[in-house]
């Protein structure tokens, strides 16, 4: 499940700018722990967003995205009160969805 995301969405001049912070380790699979064992890769592999239930953004990520990822993207349209939902799925199949209102 992971911890909640922080989502901010603001509409201006017909464009909604969405900023998302996600809580995730984003392990590369290249690091070793204190016993010398490789820490398995663990990262958000897919992220998507919906505006009022309609899919507006999809992306695939690799382990090169920073820990506790930040993402900002822009949607055409949207107005105050609209709902933006963001979903991530990691390479272990864990997923989390959070929602915010456009301001």
């Amino acid at each position: 499940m992971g911890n909640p995301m922080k989502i901010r969405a603001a509409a201006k001049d017909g464009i909604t700018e969405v900023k998302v912070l996600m809580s995730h380790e984003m392990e590369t699979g290249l690091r070793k722990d204190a016993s010398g064992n490789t820490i398995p890769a663990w990262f958000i592999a897919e992220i998507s967003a919906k505006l009022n239930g309609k899919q507006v953004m999809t992306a695939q990520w690799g382990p090169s995205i920073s820990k506790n990822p930040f993402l900002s993207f822009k949607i055409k349209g949207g107005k105050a009160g609209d709902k933006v939902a963001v979903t991530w799925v990691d390479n272990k199949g864990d997923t989390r969805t959070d929602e915010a209102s456009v301001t």
Partner: protein
Amino acid sequence: MTRRFAVGLATCLAAAGLVAGAARAEGDKTIEGIEAYREALKDGNPAELFEAQGEELWKKKAGPKNASLETCDLGMGPGVVKGAYAHLPRWFKDTDKVQDAESRVLTCMTAIQGIDVSKYVAAKWGSPEKDELNAIATWISGMSKGDKVAVSTAHPKERQMFELGKRMFYYAAGPHDFSCSTCHGQEGVRIRLQDLPYIASPKGAAAGWTSWPAYRVSSGQMWGMQWRLADCFRQQRFPEPIYGSDVTVALSMFMAATSNGATMNTPGIKR
């Protein structure tokens, strides 16, 4: 032989001087680049994720008494969090001690929730217990963002704590005869690209005090001032101070009171 050596040395120094000059010009450009980098990080500080966790922990019922921390008195009255961090550390009547945010939270966990905090105190940095304390401190600090630092040294115990902190700041010891002031006791120095604030000056004290707790991008961890100070001790090759102990609160008191009037910019983000 001696003469040739001297000439050689002079040539060498001249060349070094040139290199230093070039390095300085290059350095200014580098610093501009670093400034742009730091600016880009400000929008979307992952510390927000920890603030949310801290708020949740503050409001969640926990411990043998199954109580939340919502009645905790951080110095502005029971349950008042807004603005509290900007007035800390301060003297508290119930404990007759000067406490910072983190040691005060331990008091509240003990008194209100009935939690035996010794395992929180002893827990390693990065452990779930310390992560909880860091998250709570992060949230409390965020509730003073934009406020002016206003730390009192009027009470005798506060004054005493300030003086102890100042003494600790200049106290040199350990295998390398280090003190806090070795790195933070003068203007305009840095280690690699890290500026070292002159903590004994109001500007330098503010640069440190008003930006912690901070999210550290290097480790992806949230650090409160207690952790930051423990790391200073480690770098000085001192024994690690006990979490929330007087010496740590004293150093915070020295920094906070020296930065009085500066604006809280917490939680921060650092390399």
